[in-house]
């Protein structure tokens, strides 16, 4: 179908400001992504998939400025022994980054790898993204594949001795960053990937993960903290037999966040969990869009999303479980809930199930509610002030999502960030 004129114009206006990076190994991957993008056009306000979230600022030729948030805050994951890789406004910072040697893992920068004639990432870079374009267009991800300026390519051959930690600092109020990472886990390999930081005024990020048979991938990310930042992120993952994929995201602040997660369970007995907790205030708009395809026997998927919203904040959840014919014994669970701390905030949810197999168990639920007044009074009657009592109930509401983080140290880190955020909100 031909693109409408406004869509065509918007797409070309955005492309006019971008240049395809020099590439040898991945030149055709990038060129194909550009072709895909031109065929679908950038998202517009009328697109069904963008009904609840306005894509305008994400597709505009220029990033809207975002003030750098300079309040001192203890960075998340500070207590975790990890390999740190730092990007400032999307630019790799060698000084601040650790040595990339890690037993069981090979880590390269995208910008370096592309200089080679051939590279393993050719089989994955933009390939999982392209698979994720069906049945729904994800043009911002295609744009990312074509124009990403850097990223990391991680090949995991064994059990990684420690987590790899991507740290995204934001220093320039006008920065516009596009990063693309690829993680390939060989059979039986095991990696934990951490991500944190505001990254840029506008951030477009794609993470492609290929989880081979029996491999395990754990992902914990904390999207902070600058109030005016905008981000569109995509995760594309393919899961082999008996593999495990678990991803958790905490989001606090940011005027606009769209996190898409597209998972494909292609091997029997695979397990995929994706969870998110977000706390938003004021002109905060947060969108979780998840698409999980079951295409193998006896797989389990879980989606657990919790949003705390106040002062007019908006939360969006679009989550779909697609069970293909033959994907028998699928166990699919999806829950999305919001806690609205006032009448101005809103939660828009579109849960979907599409099932073509007859022997499956799938459940989904979505709720919106206010703070439990009975519980609040009970806590206050024991001497806990209204603010901290509300925080206790808020954390209790978020608990089911945080419990999705398997590693206790990481869960504690996330909890501490949340507690600090809530306390800071109260301090004003």
């Amino acid at each position, binding site marked *: 179908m031909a693109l409408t004129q406004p869509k065509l114009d918007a797409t070309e206006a955005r492309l006019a400001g971008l240049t395809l990076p020099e590439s040898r190994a991945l030149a055709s991957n990038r060129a194909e992504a550009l072709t895909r993008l031109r065929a679908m056009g950038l998202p517009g306000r009328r697109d069904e998939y963008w009904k609840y979230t306005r894509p305008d600022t994400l597709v505009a030729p220029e990033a809207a400025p975002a003030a750098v948030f300079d309040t001192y805050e203890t960075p998340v994951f500070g207590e975790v022994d990890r390999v740190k890789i730092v990007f400032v406004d999307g630019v790799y910072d060698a000084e601040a980054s650790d040595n990339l040697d890690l037993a069981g893992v090979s880590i390269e920068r995208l910008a370096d790898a592309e200089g080679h004639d051939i590279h393993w990432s050719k089989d994955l870079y933009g390939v999982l993204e392209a698979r994720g374009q069906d049945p729904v267009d994800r043009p911002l991800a295609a744009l990312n594949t074509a124009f990403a300026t850097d990223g990391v390519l991680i090949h995991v051959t064994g059990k990684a001795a420690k987590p790899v930690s991507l740290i995204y600092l934001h220093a320039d109020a006008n920065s516009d960053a596009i990063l693309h990472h690829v993680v390939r886990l060989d059979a039986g390999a095991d990696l934990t990937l951490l991500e944190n930081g505001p990254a840029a005024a506008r951030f477009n990020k794609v993470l492609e993960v290929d989880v081979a048979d029996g491999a395990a991938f754990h992902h914990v990310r904390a999207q902070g903290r600058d109030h005016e930042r905008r981000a569109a992120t995509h995760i594309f993952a393919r899961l082999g037999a008996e593999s495990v994929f678990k991803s958790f995201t905490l989001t606090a602040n940011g005027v606009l966040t769209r996190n898409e997660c597209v998972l494909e369970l292609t091997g029997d007995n695979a397990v995929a969990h994706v969870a998110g907790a977000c706390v938003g205030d004021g002109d905060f708009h947060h969108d979780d869009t998840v698409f999980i395809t079951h295409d193998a026997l006896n797989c389990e998927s879980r989606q657990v999303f919790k949003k705390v919203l106040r002062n007019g904040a908006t939360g969006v959840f679009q989550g779909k479980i697609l069970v293909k014919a033959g994907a028998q014994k699928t166990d699919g669970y999806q829950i999305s809930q919001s806690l609205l701390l006032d009448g101005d905030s809103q939660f828009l949810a579109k849960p979907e199930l599409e099932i073509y197999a007859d022997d499956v168990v799938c459940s989904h639920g979505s709720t919106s509610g206010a703070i*439990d*007044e*009975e*519980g609040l*009074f*009970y*806590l*206050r*009657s*024991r*001497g*806990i*002030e*209204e603010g*901290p*009592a509300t925080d*206790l*109930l808020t*954390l*209790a*509401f978020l*608990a*089911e999502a945080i419990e999705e983080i398997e590693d206790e140290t990481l869960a504690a880190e996330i909890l501490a960030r949340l507690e600090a955020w809530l306390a800071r909100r109260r301090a004003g």
Partner: protein
Amino acid sequence: MLEIKNLHVKLEEEDKRILKGVDLSIEPGSVHAIMGPNGSGKSTLSYVLSGRDGYEVTEGAATLDGHDLLELEPEERAALGLFLAFQYPVEIPGVGNMTFLRTAVNSQRKARGEEELSAADFLKLIRAKAKALKIDADMLKRPVNVGFSGGEKKRNEILQMAMLEPKMCVLDETDSGLDVDAMKLVAEGVNALRSQGRSFLVITHYQRLLDHIKPDVVHIMADGRIVKSGGPELALEVEHNGYADILAEAV
């Protein structure tokens, strides 16, 4: 300690009068009991004292050691030493009993300008108090009141009271739903706290609890008023004859 004068209360949302002039004076160290038919306003009195939303005081006053209770937030009343053991303790999914109690104890200490209890001291204290009430470690770890049996919830209320060491304790039907042994445990818990500076207001339907916790004064509440007060023998009279005679006499 607690002075209630001509207290009139209606529902905030509708024009329904519930308390119609309650007078009550509780001296330090004493135990008062309130009995009365269902719907007479006993729980409402306890809620209004502790500051729950939804009620409007149209007349009268309530003070604790001279502090105007009705002016204060629920947490401020608690910090002054007021405690309500709820008739229906609230379940709070996701908040661990232990976390809840430690936050409560330390909030009150902070409000009173005292030093917070260390984690270790708190643990030692709660273990000892829980043991006396036969509350096991598992119940302490579970979310507040979630999945607790009726009797366990009531014992949990008494545990909170023991930890918070309030000076004015209001017990709203803490005996209902308790088996004979649990009733004894609860009564022992209360008796252990009885002291010169601490008073109790025990709301109950049954004489049995009052066998264990000997009251100094018994009040009968009916239709939003205290219609009769007397010694422990008044409770026995209710037990034997019901309320009919007392109410007829009061009219």
